[in-house]
């Protein structure tokens, strides 16, 4: 009903503030028959790596009793060369913007990937996945270390002028510090959260539910934590924040916007309801009408502006 749903992430203009999260929309074509792609302002393709990866041993997924999902896919992907040659061209003239997600084992690998990608004009922005372990630094995740994050963002920034989004891992204690480093080194936006580390054991077979024992935890149960992290980061940086983690309905999405997110990503819920973006978009515009707003971008101000962010830890218990 005439609600303006566009949003801006740096120079990137999207028609809707809803984005398909990496790993949950494949290489962009798989869901095209059953989804209304226009509900998505953009889609982030599966994270690609310098070499093809076959992925982890099986089993790789498990649904926890409270509606969460554990996954340990192991970034199975075709590798950057095949991606550029075969996957990206299929998305030319797509009705939605393409964001490419990349991950490397070392900082220089990230740089090389951006360089290779910059030759294609199919994609509109980059999402740098910094949740993976840095093999050179003994497997410490890039995204929990400010120095590594800084070097990584810098090198990517040098290699492209298109918008760079850094995807943060919630496993970092001071996420706002990491986000600040991204901002200071030229990132156009940050997106969060990636999955939490989780685990489950089959007590009868005594086997882990996932072959790698620990796995990434996503879906509705992580939403309250993801929302708190987005709120924390929104209050720490002035670049746009893309919020995600357990969003599964319009109300969830609106909470992220109220907390200050410029856009949101949907992950696990796409598997459950491939057309969820369309439903959420309807709910958001309906809510805007209810609140007498003319654009979805006004949502960010409603809650945020009336609160003060508490920089000290909340004493809960």
């Amino acid at each position: 009903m005439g609600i303006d749903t566009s949003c801006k992430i740096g120079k990137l203009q999207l028609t809707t503030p809803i984005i398909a999260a990496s790993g949950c929309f494949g290489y962009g074509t798989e869901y095209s028959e059953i989804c209304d792609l226009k509900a998505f302002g953009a889609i982030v393709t599966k994270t690609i790596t310098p070499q093809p990866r076959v992925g982890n041993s099986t089993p790789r997924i498990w649904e926890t009793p409270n509606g969460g999902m554990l996954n340990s896919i192991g970034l199975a992907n075709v590798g950057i060369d095949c991606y550029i040659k075969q996957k990206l061209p299929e998305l030319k003239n797509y009705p939605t913007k393409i964001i490419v997600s990349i991950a490397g084992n070392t900082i220089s690998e990230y740089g090389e990937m951006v360089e290779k990608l910059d030759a294609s004009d199919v994609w509109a922005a980059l999402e740098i996945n910094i949740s993976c372990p840095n093999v050179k630094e003994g497997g410490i995740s890039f995204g929990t270390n400010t120095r590594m994050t800084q070097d990584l963002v810098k090198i990517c920034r040098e290699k492209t002028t298109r918008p760079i989004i850094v995807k943060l891992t919630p496993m970092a204690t001071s996420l706002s510090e990491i986000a600040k480093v991204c901002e200071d080194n030229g990132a156009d936006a940050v997106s969060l959260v990636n999955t939490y580390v989780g685990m489950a054991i089959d007590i009868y077979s005594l086997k882990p539910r996932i072959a790698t024992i620990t796995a990434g935890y996503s879906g509705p149960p992580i939403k309250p934590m993801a929302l708190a992290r987005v709120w924390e980061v929104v209050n720490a940086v002035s670049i746009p924040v893309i919020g995600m983690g357990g969003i599964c309905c319009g109300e969830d999405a609106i909470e992220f916007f109220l907390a200050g997110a410029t856009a949101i990503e949907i992950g696990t819920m796409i598997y459950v309801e491939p057309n969820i973006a369309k439903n959420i978009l309807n709910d958001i515009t309906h809510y805007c009408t209810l609140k007498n707003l003319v654009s979805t971008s006004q949502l960010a101000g409603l809650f945020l502006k009336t609160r003060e962010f508490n920089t000290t830890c909340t004493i809960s218990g």
Partner: protein
Amino acid sequence: MKNSKIFQEIGMIVDKEELNSTTAIVHVHSPNIAKHSIPGQFVHIRISDTFNPLLRRPFSIQNVIEQDNIELLIRSYGRGSSYLLQKKIGDEVNLLGPLGNGWSVPSRFKTIVGVSGGVGVAPILFLQNHFPENFIHILGAKTVGELPVSRKMIQQYDLKIATEDGSYGFYGNAIDLFLEYIQQLDVHSTFLVTCGPWKMMHELQKIAKNFNLSGAISAEARMGCAVGVCQGCAITLVTPSKLNSCFALCCKDGPIFTLEQINMEVNPFGN
């Protein structure tokens, strides 16, 4: 035999026949899926509007009835399947399908032998409907009370039943009964299709190898998306496929694989 069009459809349960306390045949009105389904394909069902459970669950299509309805065979196993079994005639079911590649039986084979265990009978019955001639269908169950078929179906499909406790038909498991038949068959013109417990299929794989028998299995793995996106449903292969991958996706590259393709030492459920 891959059929590419996928539909999301809100089906309605139009018939339900309880076979025993844990298994029922359910007919779902879902014209789009029914019209495009081929034997071996499956549907991915959203069981609840809440998060309990969250993910969809995969179920083979057992038959297509009057063009508009699909027939499913549902066994109560864990949370999801048991909630699904609680649904009644008139209830709605949120479906994604038809999914997967479907059986493909090269035309040089004149006889098909189906070996199914428990609800594994579903995708094989659908195939038998398409190839009613020269189809020998062996079905194993623990005991007569757990047979996932009605008496009428046993007659209609001429099912060769094996029960482990001898309470119905052959006294022994499906493999034992299969071994009785294999002696009489020409292995070069016979194609084996199987679906059931991993252990059973694993044993059949070895036997088929010994007999030089060709065939295919309908594999199972935990599924997230069921459309080849999440890569959660990986099945370990014997010989690397495209991309030199040692994995195939059960939902997209399968669920039907040739007997030779799969490394059955690796149970996709990890048990």
